[in-house]
């Protein structure tokens, strides 16, 4: 029986559950390491007239005070993905553009003294008018954040696929939705942290940081620190307390603290506190969306017209505006819609810059698309499930090329929906709704179908460039995953992957994959995932994002295991006196398939290249194998802007029943069903963990969480008493169902499953609330006060 597919115990847990996790703040640092504290802007937009750090420099324990002068002298700006005449630095240069922006850094003997000294820095600000909301940023007279731009629109691209104008002209109906998607975040329990050292002898930086990838950022950082990549060693601790994308956003601090360490001449440690994290780490983008559909009388959608205004905050930080383009290949969701027009604008506002966040563009896109499908059902007086079913990509159509260039790899969406409705008890839920309505209770049912993209194409972000600009820049595409397997002189197997897990259990799953390939037990395999760019195999695509571990990293592990197995089989064949293809690996032995008694211990075969290489052909010497794998389907954007933005596309069908309390306006989720086709399931327990965790964060996005800015630009959800995340008490257990259609594009048939519920669940809940209250326009979060006001309005 294969190990893959079993919920074996996680090798990570023994340490984590006994307090032996090795997180960044637990690790020892060099003697003399200094501690940093950051002075942050209290203004959303202001000129910096002067900064006087002299009193702070003289304060007890202070080694240095770092300001923009140091950073601009020793570094260079952070690159971004769009061609716009703006400079983004890791510290405010000349002016501040959001509350919480770094203005100065104190490094001192400890964090207490550093914070004491922050109070002694005298900054003279001259407040400026602000541009806070994306609708304001579109106005020509809005206060300009970056002088290099005439306004606050950093990018404005229009796309056309098929013949949307003709489809709209022919359509029986037009249905549209407007969405003001709020700012929120998936919030890791461990905040950012780093230790940076600078070696003046080699002009080299050594960084230990809670970074999660993508390692395209390594190139951005090397440039920002003005060193070649081989002089920026970036390491990650063995354990991490969650990230959900957010820890990509530590990179400006790596540049900033790198310079601080260089100025101070000593290593610098900085652990972000919770107030800093909420105010100034990153958030998901907020977005204004108008989405219109051309609809036939039976609910079939023939065209979509997207208008998206993406608010990335005060700077375009790499890889933004990727949030806007990550879903470009699947803007038609799970539906067979041949005609699409898109207008994408990226605007700058006086808010914290956006960055990676679980779901990355999916929550925004699917909120509009699936609210639209619900509105089609309401406006055409059709059953919501019928509208979804009539539009699904049909069975047997895979691989299916979407209008915008995505390649949906596999699935059977209609069958999956039918199975979910049956196993999840949709008919019973509708009975419950009838009964509730009979008792005058506000009970609604919502549903949603989405495709969950995974394994991002490194080229998708270049869709923001015109074809002409892309030609000049050269093609970008692919997603190199890496895995290294090594055999030691005792025949023990070690594996390294540059997947930078943030708590997920990558080491366990990798051990299952390798154990299956080599006929060993998972406990025979030692997997390490701490990462060091100076020593480990990695590529710009490495890291923990875009749900790439299962499909891409495990795929590379499988290929590496097969490669080493082929060498060992040839080596063993000579000793077993059989052909190499007659050799099998099972139960810790290498043996003849037809005569299992003709066998050698695995360890003996595996050690041979160490002890007796002279007995082996050069090609059969197996000590260490590193595989790089990139799928051929991830091609660069085409001349007509078609882009296969992701390799795999899982399918999700969710439905739920909920009640809105007439007294308080509070939502009580009665039942939530989530059906997943994530291809081959490698570890059912971890898949359930991913689904449940994503669901919990999605309940937060739907009902609780918002990064709120007051009209004056101040940030008013800066503590965990203001930014409310649901706890176990607020999150019901979803019913998780599975439908397995393996991906033909990945070595193991797995597709990503890490982010889907962050995309499907917020809108599924909103659709149910809309159903309960009969509302057309509904923006998140659905707070009791907001819903109570809607109920009162309707009455």
């Amino acid at each position: 029986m294969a190990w893959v597919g079993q919920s074996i115990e996680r090798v990570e847990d023994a340490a984590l559950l006994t307090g032996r996790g090795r997180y960044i703040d637990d690790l020892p640092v060099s003697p003399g390491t200094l501690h940093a504290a950051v002075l942050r802007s209290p203004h959303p937009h202001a000129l910096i007239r002067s900064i006087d750090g002299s009193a702070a420099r003289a304060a007890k324990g202070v080694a240095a005070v770092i300001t923009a002068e140091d950073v601009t002298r020793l570094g260079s700006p952070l690159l971004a993905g769009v061609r716009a005449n703006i400079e983004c630095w890791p510290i405010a240069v000349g002016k501040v553009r959001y509350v919480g922006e770094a203005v100065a850094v104190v490094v001192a003997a400890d964090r207490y003294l550093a914070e004491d000294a922050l109070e002694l820095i005298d900054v003279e600000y001259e407040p400026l008018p602000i541009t806070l909301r994306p609708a304001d940023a579109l106005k020509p007279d809005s206060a300009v954040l970056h002088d290099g731009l005439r306004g606050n629109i950093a990018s404005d691209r229009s796309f056309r696929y098929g013949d949307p104008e003709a489809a709209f002209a022919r359509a029986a109906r037009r249905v549209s939705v407007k969405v003001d998607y709020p700012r929120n975040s998936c919030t890791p329990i461990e905040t950012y942290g780093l230790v940076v050292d600078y070696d003046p002898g080699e002009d080299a930086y050594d960084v230990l940081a809670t970074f999660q990838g993508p390692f395209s950022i390594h190139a951005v950082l090397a440039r920002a620190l003005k060193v070649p990549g081989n002089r920026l060693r970036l390491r990650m601790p063995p354990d991490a307390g969650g990230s959900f994308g957010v820890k990509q956003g530590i990179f400006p601090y790596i540049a900033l603290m790198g310079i601080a360490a260089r100025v101070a001449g000593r290593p610098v440690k900085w652990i972000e506190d919770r107030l800093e994290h909420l105010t100034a780490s990153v958030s998901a983008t907020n977005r204004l969306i108008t989405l219109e559909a051309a609809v036939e009388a039976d609910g079939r959608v023939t065209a979509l017209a997207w208008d998206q205004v993406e608010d990335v905050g005060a700077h375009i930080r790499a890889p933004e505006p990727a949030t806007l383009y990550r879903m470009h290949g699947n803007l038609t969701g799970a539906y067979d819609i041949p005609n699409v027009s898109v207008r994408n604008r990226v605007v700058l506002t006086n808010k914290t810059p956006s960055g990676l966040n679980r779901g990355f563009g999916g929550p925004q896109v699917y909120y509009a698309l699936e609210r639209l499908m619900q509105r089609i059902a309401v406006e055409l007086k059709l059953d919501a499930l019928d509208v979804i079913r009539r539009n699904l990509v049909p069975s047997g159509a895979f691989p299916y090329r979407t209008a915008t260039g995505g390649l949906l790899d596999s699935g059977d969406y209609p069958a999956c929906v039918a199975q979910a409705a049956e196993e999840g008890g949709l008919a019973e839920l509708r009975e419950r709704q009838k009964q509730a309505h009979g008792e005058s209770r506000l009970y609604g049912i919502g549903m949603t179908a989405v495709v969950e993209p995974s394994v991002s194409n490194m080229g998708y972000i270049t869709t923001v460039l015109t074809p002409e600009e892309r030609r000049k820049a050269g093609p970008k595409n692919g997603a190199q995953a890496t895995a290294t397997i090594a055999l030691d002189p005792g025949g023990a197997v070690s594996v390294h992957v540059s997947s930078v897990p943030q708590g997920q259990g990558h080491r366990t799953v990798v051990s299952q994959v390798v154990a299956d390939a080599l006929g060993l037990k998972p406990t025979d395999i030692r997997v390490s995932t701490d990462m060091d760019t100076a020593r480990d195999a990695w590529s710009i695509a490495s890291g923990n994002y875009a749900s790439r571990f299962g499909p891409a990293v495990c795929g590379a592990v499988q290929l590496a295991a097969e490669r080493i197995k082929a060498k060992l089989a040839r080596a063993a064949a000579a000793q077993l006196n059989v052909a190499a293809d007659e050799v099998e690996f099972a139960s810790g032995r290498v043996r003849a398939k037809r005569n299992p008694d003709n066998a050698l211990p695995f360890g003996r075969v595996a050690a041979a290249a160490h002890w007796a290489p002279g007995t082996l052909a050069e090609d059969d010497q197996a000590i260490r194998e590193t595989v790089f794998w990139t799928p051929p389907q991830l091609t660069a954007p085409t001349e007509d802007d078609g882009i296969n933005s992701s390799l795999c596309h899982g399918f999700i069908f969710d439905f739920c029943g909920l009640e809105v309390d007439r007294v308080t306006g509070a939502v009580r989720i009665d039942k939530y069903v989530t059906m997943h086709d994530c291809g081959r399931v490698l570890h059912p327990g971890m898949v359930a963990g991913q689904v449940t965790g994503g669901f919990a964060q999605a309940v937060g996005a739907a009902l609780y969480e918002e990064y709120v800015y007051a009209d004056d630009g101040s940030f008013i959800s800066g503590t965990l008493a203001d930014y409310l995340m649901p706890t176990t008490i607020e999150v019901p257990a979803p019913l998780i169902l599975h439908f397995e259609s393996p991906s033909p594009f990945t070595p193991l048939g797995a597709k990503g499953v890490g982010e889907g519920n962050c995309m499907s669940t917020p809108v599924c809940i909103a659709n149910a609330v809309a159903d309960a209250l009969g509302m057309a326009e509904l923006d998140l979060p659905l707070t009791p006060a907001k819903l109570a006001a809607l109920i009162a309005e309707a009455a």
Partner: protein
Amino acid sequence: MKPAPFDYVRAGILAEAHDVLAAEGGDAAVLAGGQSLVPLLSMRMARPKVLLDIMHLAELGGIRIENDAIRVGARARQADLLAWSGLAKHQPLLAQAVPWIGHWQTRARGTVCGSVALADPSAELPLCLLALGGEVTLSSKQGQRRVKADDFFTGLMSTARSDDELIEAASFPCRRPGEGFAFREFARRHGDFAIVACAAVVTEKNVRLAIGGVADRPVVRDFDDPGDDALAAFAADLDARDDLHATADYRRDLVRRLGRITIDEAQACRA
């Protein structure tokens, strides 16, 4: 998020605590359970010169019945009160309300008198103290005094305690025959600060409703006839404000709706 420098004094006897308070006045902060003070210190929103730890003062311990009231000493944790075997029998309102305070973990550290001292307008214990007509025992070098709950809560996070005084105990009157009690609260999540909290104490002739989370302090009103108009008038008189979590309108509506439910429950349990 590290506190500004302060001196720490662990008082060994009550007189020592009085001396520190007399000497430092408003520059001293009393540390009991620390569930509110410590975060305020870390955010540098509280910057006392001296932190006076009273958790080792043997004189301030204990929960006991005294003068027909539950006297809770300054060292008693909220969890101690909840676990006190006489609670449901002697004061059902407290038995209903205390589980709403924060979380299991915060109740294990937070003290009853600390919550009374902080006087957060959303807090459950000040609300109950007011609804029950309890009192606070204060002491200083000058001696001891007792202040009725009505007079103790003077505004947003402010009380009648002088800078040189220490809260020794809070006394919650025991239930009397014929009384009915109910407590209801609405917050965004379990354990959050109440958006509206309601405590009702009813007798044959009187209905008393106390509301937290709306005005700058808990507010109590007695009704002969708590009809809808009377409740609406009470809600309108409270100085409700908008904040991040709820509008003033929403709070007033909840006072009317939850207040009604709370009164009905109190009357039902009296009957």
